C-alpha cells in the first residue's frame, strides 16, 4: 500500500455519481431494448461462437454498450490467449 493511501479516506461515490451511473446503464438497456439478463446470455453465445475459431480469455470478455450522443453501439472486447502458437486476428 502506498504511504499516501494510509491517510486518504476512501470517499464513497456521491449520490449524483450513483444516479448518473445507474441512468447510464438503464438507458443503454432501454434504448437497445435488451434486459441485463439477455445481454449476459448474448455474451455467452458470443464467447461460444468465437471460441470455435479462436483461443480466447473467456473470463475477460467484456460486452457492453457505448454511447455517442444518441447513437448506441454494442462493443465486444475479446482478449486472445497469449502463447497459442499462431495468433489469428478478426
Amino acid at each position, binding site marked *: 500500500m502506498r504511504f499516501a493511501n494510509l491517510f486518504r479516506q476512501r470517499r464513497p461515490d*456521491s449520490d449524483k455519481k450513483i444516479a448518473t451511473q445507474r441512468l447510464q446503464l438503464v438507458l443503454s438497456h432501454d434504448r437497445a431494448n435488451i434486459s441485463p439478463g439477455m445481454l449476459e446470455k448474448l455474451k455467452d453465445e458470443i464467447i461460444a461462437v468465437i471460441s470455435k475459431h479462436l483461443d480466447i480469455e473467456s473470463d475477460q470478455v467484456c460486452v457492453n454498450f457505448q454511447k455517442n450522443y*444518441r447513437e448506441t453501439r454494442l462493443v465486444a472486447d475479446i482478449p486472445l490467449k497469449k502463447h497459442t502458437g499462431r495468433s489469428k486476428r478478426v
Partner: protein
Amino acid sequence: MSGKIITISSGKGGVGKSTTTANLGIALALLGKSVICIDADIGLRNLDVMLGLENRIVYDIINVVTKQCSLRKALVRDKHCSNLALLPAAQICDKSAISEDEMERIAREAAEQADFVFIDSPAGIEHGFRYAVKPADLVLLVTNPEVPAVRDADRVIGLLEAAGRAPVQLIINRLNPELVRRDVMLDADSIVNLLAIKLVGIVPEDPAILIAGNRGQPVVLDKQSLAGKSFRNIGRRLTGEEIPFMSLQAPSWLQRIFRFQR
C-alpha cells in the same frame, strides 16, 4: 399567418408540464406574441386553474371537435395578458374522445390565429401523448433531476426519434442548486449528457410555484422569483434570442449573510 406549434411533454407525470405550459404561454404573451395554450390533458383539466381562468370556461376542446362551437368561440381570454387564450380540456370525457387527426386540425387552426400554440400533453406514452405530439413543430420535454423522470424522458425521445417526429429540446425543472452543490442531486450537465438533446432551460425548485398555483397567477408574473425569471428566459430563447443560462449556484454563506442584511 402560421404560428409555431410547441408541445410540452414528459413521459412521467407531475414533472411540471402544465406549470411550464402556463408560464411559457404568459412569457411569450408578455413579449408581445399572440399565444394559444391548448390543454390536451382531456379528463384531467388543469391549465385553467393554473392560469386562474376556471370561472370563465364555457366551451372546451371536445365542443370544438364535435363542431358544437368554433375554435374562436371556445377560446378563453387570459386575464393577465389579452394576447393569450386558453382552449380548455374537456373534463367529463376521456382521451379517446379525440383522434390524432382531430388534434392536428385544431392545432393547425389555432396556429392560423397565433404566433405560438402550446399544447400541454398528458402524461404517459399512449394515445394522449401521441395526439399531443402529432402536430408539433417542436417538442419541449420537461424532466426533473431524478432517475425515473430522466429515464422516462429518454423513452419519449426514443419514441419521437423512431417516428421521425419534430425536434426535441429539454427543460430541466425543479433543480435544487443546494442539493446539486452537495453532489446529492443530478446536475444539468449530467442530464444533458445522458439524454444528448439540446437544453433550452433550467427551472429551479421554487416555493413561489406552489403559491402561484394556489392563486392562479403563474410565477412568471412574479418579478422576484427565480423560477419566473427562468421561464421568461426560456420564452425569449423560443423567439430566437440567445440568452445565457442563469447561474443557479446555491448562495454561499457569505452571500446569505449579505442577503439577510438587505
